[in-house]
């Protein structure tokens, strides 16, 4: 009985297994048939779902043996030599097919990147915008008045507006350009343009032959754009500031980052002609709720003649919303093409931290050669307008946060003033001229931006103070001390001796340099303290104040400790400040702090050395900072400021604070200190000290104002905190503390 049951069970089991298997096959077959039917494959057996493996005959490599020979020298030598080929190319690829290789004379730039601006045309006043462009060039470190040493030439003829219907249109450009003695078919010339072509087609026609000149043009069309030769610049209004420029609107990062509106636009609608299509279609995605796209037909003289059915309703809606309100409260801003490809909306959105959604097919984006726009904008396709809402909705919060911050960085780095736009244009050309010493994409697209990151310093990013964390590195644990010596050595009691001993004892100090800025010849090595740390004396070529920030070859470490000869510091203090600097390698970290304030009575900036609850400068009489700032100080700042500092023999420390705060957008860092530095010295009225000079203070005041005017804004920022050792002045045993000397008086 039991056995029977078992047999039965097993048989049933086996049968059901068989059935299941059969069913499985059936279902599988059904599926494949179904699929085949669906895709219409069953009739065409040669459409495989996957690429087959071809086994017979064995496949040959594409690079046959013959290929090697073909490229071989024998065959090659029958043809033109490379030198001849280059010459031929230069003759073929001209005008519209210009490239740097064929239309640019690199030899002119061998003595440096200098720019010459033609003298102004008699009796002619260029437009406001063009005046700003020329002024920006003339104030830059590239400007030269000598055409013979120039690498690049800029016209004094205003070519910004080439719309024949415009009041700014300059006539006879063609003839006037041809008559320029240095024109050479436009070689090494840079031509600026904002508006080209005219109603109704708005082509890229300039109305004169630019020949081999480079074109820096707004609203550039990819079709006419000569890659790596022309430069696409942003369209800016005549009110765009010459220098400094307004800040971006973002002052804190909101989370969640979505704002009241998702997408906004407010602008003209063109009823006819080029560029009308996209704006005419905007109403399809306007929903009156979080997508606010407003257009008006009310512009131009005879708009009513062309007005369509929607005009009245559109015009009414248009007046209901305030543009600024929309800008401030929207996550995305639509930037559709206007008559031309670029529009003012672009820079407005960028400044407002409203992520631009670009709908302008064929637009070569501003500075596209160096700026990675995908990090700051959504690049759409005019043909896919209807997808814009779902695309913008699909952007995640983290991405919005990142895009928004990037708009602010780009705005501030390259667009907020005419000077920045012009300098960016020039630096792009500069980078092309010395390709092996040019900025990398990271330098252009991350803080502090390409204008502050000079590639001459190094092509190695890890040598800059800005990129440690993105490279996954930290600053090396060593520094160089530079002591500026102004007074001759007389006695062993001089503060400089103590100072050298104290600094040399720091385990992070790998090098001490004395910058001998004294008229007398430097004393021999044996007159100096005997220390084991490498010690050397360098003599500036010009014994000037700016010399202290000269990028001396002798400085080998990233960190620099800058010292005055009369600074009083203990080893503890030096060590602690250096440890702090490692956390803030892009800032000045030091002891004596000063502050600036707005003197509303006098309408200018004031300087104070009083003890206050906040500070904005840390003096370089005792401060750590990155070596790169020596380079930036010497090569970025204009001669006018540097010579001012030299003449006054004052203010160099203020200037470097201005510079570093302009770069980092952050205040310096003050660390604690045993004694109040310098104040004591001043009271003693040490004869040698320049601090005793009564004019000294007034000079510093006026320095501040000169610096502010060159920068175009006040870069200094206040801080209310001081960094102390963790157990500073705590009521715990002194033995527990690492930095004991700082507390001892």
């Amino acid at each position, binding site marked *: 009985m039991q056995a029977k049951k078992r047999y039965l069970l*097993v048989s049933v089991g*086996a049968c059901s297994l068989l059935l299941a*298997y059969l069913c499985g096959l059936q279902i599988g077959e059904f599926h*494949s048939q179904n699929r085949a039917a669906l895709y219409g494959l069953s009739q065409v*057996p*040669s*459409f495989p779902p996957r690429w*087959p*493996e*071809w086994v017979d*005959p064995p*496949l*040959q*490599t*594409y*690079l*046959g043996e*013959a290929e*090697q020979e073909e*490229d071989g020298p024998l065959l*090659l030598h029958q*043809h033109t030599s*490379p*030198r001849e080929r*280059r010459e031929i190319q230069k003759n073929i690829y001209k005008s519209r097919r210009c490239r740097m290789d064929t239309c640019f004379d*690199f030899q002119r730039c061998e003595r440096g990147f200098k720019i010459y601006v033609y003298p102004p045309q008699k009796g002619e006043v260029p437009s406001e915008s063009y005046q700003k462009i020329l002024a920006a060039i003339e104030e830059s470190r590239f400007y030269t008045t000598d055409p013979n040493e120039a690498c690049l030439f800029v016209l004094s003829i205003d070519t910004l507006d080439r719309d024949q219907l415009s009041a700014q249109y300059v006539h006879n450009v063609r003839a006037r350009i041809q008559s320029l003695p240095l024109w050479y078919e436009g070689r090494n010339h840079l031509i600026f343009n904002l508006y080209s072509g005219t109603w109704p087609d708005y082509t890229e026609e300039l109305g004169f032959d630019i020949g081999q000149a480079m074109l820096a043009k707004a609203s550039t069309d*990819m079709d006419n754009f000569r890659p*790596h030769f022309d430069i696409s610049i942003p369209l800016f209004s005549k009110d765009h500031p010459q220098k400094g420029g307004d800040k971006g609107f973002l*002052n*804190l*990062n909101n*989370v969640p980052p979505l704002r009241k509106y998702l997408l906004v636009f407010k602008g003209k609608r063109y009823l006819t002609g080029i560029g009308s299509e996209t704006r005419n279609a905007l109403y399809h995605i306007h929903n009156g709720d979080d997508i606010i796209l407003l257009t008006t037909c009310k512009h131009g003289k005879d708009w009513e003649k062309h007005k369509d059915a929607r005009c009245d309703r559109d015009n009414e809606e248009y007046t209901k919303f305030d543009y600024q309100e929309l800008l401030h409260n929207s996550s995305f801003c639509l930037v559709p093409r206007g008559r031309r490809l670029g529009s003012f909306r672009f820079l407005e959105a960028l400044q407002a931290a409203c992520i631009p959604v670009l709908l302008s*097919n064929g637009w070569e984006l501003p500075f596209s050669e160096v700026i990675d726009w*995908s990090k700051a904008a959504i690049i*759409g396709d*005019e*043909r896919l307008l209807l997808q814009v809402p779902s695309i913008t909705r*699909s952007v995640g919060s983290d991405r919005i946060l990142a895009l928004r911050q990037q708009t602010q*960085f780009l705005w501030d780095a390259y667009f907020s003033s005419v000077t920045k736009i012009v300098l960016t244009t020039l630096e792009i050309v500069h980078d092309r001229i010395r390709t092996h*010493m040019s900025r*990398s994409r990271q330098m252009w697209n991350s803080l502090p931006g390409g204008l502050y990151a000079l590639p001459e310093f*190094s092509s*190695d990013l890890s040598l800059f103070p800005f990129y440690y*964390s*993105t*490279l996954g590195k930290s600053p090396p644990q060593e520094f160089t001390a530079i002591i500026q010596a102004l007074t001759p050595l007389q006695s062993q009691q001089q503060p400089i001796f103590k100072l050298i001993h104290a600094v040399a004892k720091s385990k992070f100090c790998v090098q001490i340099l004395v910058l001998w800025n004294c008229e007398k010849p430097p004393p021999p090595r044996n007159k100096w303290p005997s220390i084991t740390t490498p010690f050397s004396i360098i003599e500036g070529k010009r014994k000037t104040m700016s010399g202290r920030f000269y990028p001396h070859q002798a400085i080998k470490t990233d960190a620099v400790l800058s010292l005055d000869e009369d600074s009083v510091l203990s080893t503890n203090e030096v060590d602690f400040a250096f*440890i702090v600097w490692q*956390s803030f390698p892009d800032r000045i970290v030091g002891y004596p702090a000063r502050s600036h304030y707005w003197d509303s009575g006098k309408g200018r900036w004031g300087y104070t050395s009083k*003890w206050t*609850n906040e500070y904005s400068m840390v003096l370089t009489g005792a401060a750590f900072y990155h070596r790169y700032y020596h380079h930036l100080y010497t090569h970025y700042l204009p001669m006018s400021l540097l010579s001012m500092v030299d003449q006054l023999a004052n203010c160099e420390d203020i200037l470097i604070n201005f510079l570093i705060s302009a770069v980092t957008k952050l205040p310096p860092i*003050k660390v*604690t200190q045993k004694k109040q530095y310098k104040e004591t010295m001043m009271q003693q009225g040490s004869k040698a000290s320049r601090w005793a000079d009564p004019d000294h203070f007034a000079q510093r005041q006026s320095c501040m104002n000169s610096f502010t005017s060159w920068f175009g804004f006040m870069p200094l920022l206040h801080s209310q*905190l*001081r960094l*102390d050792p*963790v*157990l500073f*002045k705590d*009521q715990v045993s002194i033995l527990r503390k*690492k930095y004991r000397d700082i507390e001892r008086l």
Partner: protein
Amino acid sequence: MCASGKYGSRGPALIPRMKTKHRIYYITLFSVVLLGLIATGMFQFWPHSIESSAEWSLDRRSVHDAPLVRISVNSPIPGRGDLSCRMHTCFDVYRCGYNPKNKIKVYIYPLQRFVDEVGVPISSTGLSREYNDLLSAISDSDFYTDDVSRACLFVPSIDVLNQNSLRIRETAQALAMLPRWDKGMNHLLFNMLPGGPPDYNTALDVPRDRALLAGGGFSTWTYRQGYDVSIPVYSPLSAEVDLPERQPGPRRYFILSSQTAIHREYRVELERLKDENGEALLLLDKCSNLSQGLTSVRKRCYKGQVYDYPQILQESSFCVVLRGARLGQATLSDVLQAGCVPVIMADSYILPFSEVLDWKRASVVIPEEKLPEMYTILKSIPHRQVEEMQRQARWFWEAYFSSMKAIGMTTLQIINDRIYPYAAHTYEEWNNPPVVKWSSVNSPLFLPLIPPRSPGFTAVVLTYDRIESLFRVITEISKVPSLAKLLVVWNNQNKSPPEESLWPKVAVPLKVVRTKENKLSNRFFPFDEIETEAVLAIDDDIIMLTSDELQFGYEVWREFPDRLVGYPGRLHLWDHEMGKWKYESEWTNEVSMVLTGAAFYHKYFNYLYTYKMPGDIKNWVDAHMNCEDIAMNFLVANITGKAPIKVTPRKKFKCPECTAIDGLSLDQTHMVERSECINKFASVFGTMPLKVVEHRADPVLYKDDFPEKLKSFPNIGSL
């Protein structure tokens, strides 16, 4: 089949223990089942095998089986490529559609053998091994579709990798015969060797209408930026030779030239450089005395000395890649594989994948004219950077050059990025090698901002049932000028919060949120009620903090809005004996964490904590009712790469008499648990993100000899 296989393997073990009768029965049954299976299988396959062969045996086929297509002489020829083509003019984006995956669909035409009227094939090689590899890689990828009607991009199976093996006119005619050709719209051709003697055009000479060209030797004049894709010239040696990656560093030679087909003019220049700089340069050429054949490709010679190629490339820091008749050179691939930094001298050449790859990080480009200056230029590059470039070069090869698959996938991804630009790979994704991706920190709050003071901060008080001390905390905090709102997170489900009238009267809005579960993570929940960016997390027993201390803490947060700015400082230490991390709450000279019992931070981190905490940390914290503060420190340090900031000397928070370790922290097991947390979190994060610092933030005039009443924050407690 699988089921029966299992039976078979079990059978022998069972059978010996059974009676013979049973055994016979089982064997019979088993055979019947097996036979049944075989029979059904035969039935399934046999009768249909001819029509369904494509479905079932597609794997291996003969090229001869591909259908033969005869091209008539008058068959239409496509127009020449349009130089003005751009994605928005020549590419039909509607075919790609909007899809949530943001992935284009690619269709591959089935293989056909095209011949002219007299039966001569249009190509001397037919389908090459490389093109076959490329097509099968595409067909194995996510891009592939076998549905021609859903495709956005079409890839012909006509192999045009090497123009020399093609009959131009007939190839063009064959292209035009493709069923979906439609003026080449959305068609992608792959070509590595364009042009032919004597002029060597830099783009494929086959007329192709609007088809996109993935080409291996574009010059700036033939490359349609944003439309074509510049691809490498694949080196078959990549598959043949296995060169293990070498550590970056100085090499035996400084510059090496290995190309055999260098123009005489350039060879003279190189020899002059060698004369000037001696041993630093190695100029190799073809071996004249070796017997021809496969080996000659793998050998190079200098003055009779024979070197193995490409192995010798690993012995040099820089390797010269000069243009030949064509701009694109397969040598580039070999050089990258060897981790040698290519020195590219090919004017007007569009470097492979230059649309996305930053060649500045992996190569040196020098104008041909500057060849004599090569040595000086290369010498000016810092060593550290050369090493970076060596690493980068090797990585470019691995990711983008090493196989036809890599080349094909990169090309498709580039096109995909253009069609869905808002979902495109970033510069970092394309260019950072894994080691950099892993170690680099890109803070989500990267913009240097000092937020305005005016919005103030929201204090979030986590409480369970300590009403009295809670009210004291509320009263204290309410004196802080910048307080904007008080949020009490009521974590006790068994007890209701006190009536409204009992709460202390405060000037700012006070809101109580009741939680569903008593979880520690509730304190970091991004409540909608938090309307300011600054959050002060505070425990309900922190009664010692003064209004000045709190206001100062807020000011410090404004200067460091991307950091944790808090009062109780803690440290993690490496315990050498135990070989693991240890938690330290003694008053030390260092700080690596600030506890969220009293800390300011950006609201953003609430989102991160709640939604982006890696691994199971969040649940772990809730289950253990401990370490939420340590987890927050890990999270912030990991994403920003920055240390927290301890503010003011304050070390006692609950009562003046309290020791350093108070309340919960007294418990020894608690301390052990906190050490465990650190070890646990470090293993989840895969690294120790915490950063140790030796500073704390005090008001500028703290303890300075200065009238107290003139100080902004006079009331800073000493301990």
